[in-house]
């Protein structure tokens, strides 16, 4: 019912996909067969490719052929990227004997369990199916209701009160960059606003999914763990869309590395030794699999050159981090510094790299992304917000550097304040799972996120005051979410 709410005509697709993969999974459990497995994976990928990439591929073919071919628009079925990956994992594990549970109703519930269906986490059968066999899970538990409800409210608050308003600042900048150059301050404002919009949006969906799951007695895996606190890109991908990283690592990266390692060993070529490897081994065993895996990640996120560049950029960043760590190991330097300044610098650098990649992710095409980047680089001139001119010596400093002071259509002090406040929130406060660390939330959160270590190291307690405060927060959020008020119209006052 949840799946059909948006488009009823997509229901046969998910039903067909479930029936096909359940049947194939059963066959592979009974008798593993490489050809059958490959055919199953190919069928899943083909369905995903048809719905997600046909328009893009036809466009490319048209460009190559010098024509403007077009196909009637294909509407992307809800959640196809998520349930396709889940079922590919199930097929592979069935073939390898890692999947044993094969109850049809449980399988259907595993795929269609609505809290995680549209935005993840990408669940793994090993962590979900056993929960369905546990009758204890289907009795209401006050602790799960309490923490699930709290997470749901936190997620809704992040989405409605924090993420969406950032979108009203980011969208005009990216829209403007499609057609005209944008100023440096405006471009930075738009890029940072989007970085925070997506952060809080995805964090919100992950919280809501896990919270809703708990209300139904099901624990979902952690999917988002303060990624902007990451010290490098490897750390970042261990915190951002954790279940996607887990899938890509287990089913794409690791098999490639294993195959390439075996081939090099068979050829008598050196592989990794004591965590170190030579440049050629590094290129073959680290750089190639990493870049390819992130290329797949980019393609999975969307159809378009900008998504491919997004993936390749992340591949490049990851290779640089791996190479840097190899260099440090080879020279006997500790891989992770304990200096607070170096940690802060590495967190900032990682955040900036992620923001640059997100510009491609947000842009409707590569040209727009390059336009925003050109603006951020100052290539379109530097106009600083007029109120800054009132700051002592600002005018002189601006003049010396060739900057101007003037009004900026796409940047205002409200945005500056919001960016400052929420970057401070992101970097200094514990996340929801750290706050709730003494109680049931996501699967294995304690090992992953630990107790609060941020500046404000509070822990959630089920007290009356906390309940009233979270309840009041839920009222503000729901009133805002269901409000009919249009976006504020800052028309001249007459």
């Amino acid at each position, binding site marked *: 019912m949840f799946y059909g709410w948006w488009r009823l005509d997509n229901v046969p697709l998910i039903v067909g996909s479930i029936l096909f993969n359940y049947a194939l999974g059963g066959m592979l459990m009974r008798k593993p067969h490489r050809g059958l497995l490959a055919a199953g994976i190919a069928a899943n990928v083909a369905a995903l490719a048809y719905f997600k990439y046909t328009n893009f591929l036809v466009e490319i073919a048209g460009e190559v052929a010098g024509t403007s071919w077009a196909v009637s628009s294909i509407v992307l079925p809800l959640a196809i990227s998520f349930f396709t990956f889940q079922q590919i994992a199930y097929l592979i594990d069935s073939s390898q004997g890692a999947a044993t549970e094969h109850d049809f109703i449980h399988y259907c519930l595993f795929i269609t369990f609505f809290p995680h269906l549209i935005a993840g986490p990408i669940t793994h059968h090993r962590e979900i199916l056993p929960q369905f066999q546990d009758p204890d899970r289907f009795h209401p538990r*006050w602790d799960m209701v309490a923490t699930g409800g709290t997470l749901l409210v936190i997620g809704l608050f992040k989405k409605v009160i924090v993420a969406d308003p950032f979108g009203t600042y980011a969208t005009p900048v990216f829209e403007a960059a499609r057609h005209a150059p944008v100023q440096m301050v405006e471009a930075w404002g738009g890029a940072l606003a989007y970085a925070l919009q997506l952060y809080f949006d995805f964090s919100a969906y992950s919280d809501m999914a896990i919270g809703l799951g708990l209300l139904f007695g099901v624990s979902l895996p952690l999917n988002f763990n303060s990624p902007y606190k990451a010290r490098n890109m490897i750390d970042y991908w261990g915190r951002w869309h954790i279940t996607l990283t887990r899938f890509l690592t287990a089913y794409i990266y690791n098999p490639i590395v294993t195959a390439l390692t075996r081939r090099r060993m068979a050829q008598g070529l050196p592989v990794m030794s004591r965590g170190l490897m030579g440049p050629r081994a590094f290129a073959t065993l680290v750089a190639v699999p990493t870049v390819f895996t992130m290329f797949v990640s980019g393609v999975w996120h969307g159809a378009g050159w900008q998504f491919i560049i997004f993936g390749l950029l992340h591949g490049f960043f990851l290779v640089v981090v791996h190479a840097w760590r190899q260099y440090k190991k080879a020279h006997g330097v500790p891989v992770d510094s304990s200096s607070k300044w170096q940690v802060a610098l590495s967190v900032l650098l990682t955040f900036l790299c992620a923001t640059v990649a997100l510009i491609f992710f947000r842009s409707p095409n590569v040209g727009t992304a390059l336009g925003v980047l050109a603006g951020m680089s100052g290539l379109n001139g530097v106009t600083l917000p007029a109120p800054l001119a009132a700051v002592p010596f600002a005018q002189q400093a601006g003049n010396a550097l060739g900057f101007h002071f003037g009004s900026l259509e796409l940047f205002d002090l409200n945005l500056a304040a919001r960016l400052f406040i929420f970057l401070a929130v992101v970097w200094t406060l514990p996340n929801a799972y750290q706050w709730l660390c003494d109680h049931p939330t996501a699967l*294995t959160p*304690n090992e992953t996120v630990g107790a609060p270590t941020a500046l404000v190291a509070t822990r959630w307690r089920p007290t009356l005051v906390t309940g009233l405060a979270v309840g009041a927060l839920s009222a503000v959020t729901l009133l805002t979410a269901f*409000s009919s*008020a*249009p976006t504020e*119209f800052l028309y*001249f006052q*007459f």
Partner: protein
Amino acid sequence: MSKATEPRGPDAGGGSMRQYVAALFGGALLFVTLLSGLLLLLERSGVLPPPQFANSLCLDEKLSFMRENQPRNVNLLVIGSSEAWRSFNSPEAVSSDPSLRPYNAGLCGKNIAQSAQVVSWLISRVPSVQSVLVIIAPGDLEGCSTSSHSSFNLQDVDQFVFGKRSKLIYYFKYFDANTLVRNIIGLSQYRRVTTSFNSLYINKFGDGPLDPTGSRGLLYGDPDLDDQCFAEFGRVAHLLRRRNIRLVVAEAPTNPAWKIRYDPTSSKSTMINQRINDALRGSKAVFIKAGDLPEKAFFDAYHIRWSYTPQFTRALLKKMNQAS
């Protein structure tokens, strides 16, 4: 599986968890109660902003005025954007012609298509209307085909203005905490003064007198005229003719500085006149121009200082009488 996620039976967490869940609902109810109390307190203090139907303070404030001062027994309905709201001087009109019972329903930010919607709404509610005066500026002739026909939900606004439901309902339905808080700031003063650009003072006829000392320095720019806007005049004329209501479309004067910059040869003005006359042809509606005013009469491209509105209003009424 961590300790935290181990299933432990229905009473896991015991009474404290049950109490917490109850507090969640209690907190939500408490907030709604406190917000209602705060709104009532603000109303008593005279600083309650209007419900955010359009989330534009000057427009929402006018709707709130209309609720408190419903148009009854009026025979002249003045319609348009802020141009109509700020420029028509109803007291002057009444002193010139005591038979007039005007009501200024100009709503800021409205293009002519949206104003047409307001005409349709109000004449259905106010049967005493005999004449509709639509005052336009060039900027009102933009964006009719791209913008929504109404910047607010007409059904809700109709119930708000003419219905008897508590207005608290609309604060919850149109809840926007940020704007609500921001609108409170300075509201008391803006409702009293006529010299601030943010003035929200409205006289008993619905006019919005504004006479600031300086100029806003805003010339707005060259309007991108929309064909759909001109078509709207024909639609309104047809609607009013069926109801036997007289329609007068008046082009308000523009700041000479605007004319020099954007219409030096008057070709745009001539074209606007021609197209409006074409749209009204075949109806009994008339199109008039109220004459020019000096630059000092304006505080931006279109809006006339209140001290010059008697002159404008008298000229307008004279042309209306001549045309009848």
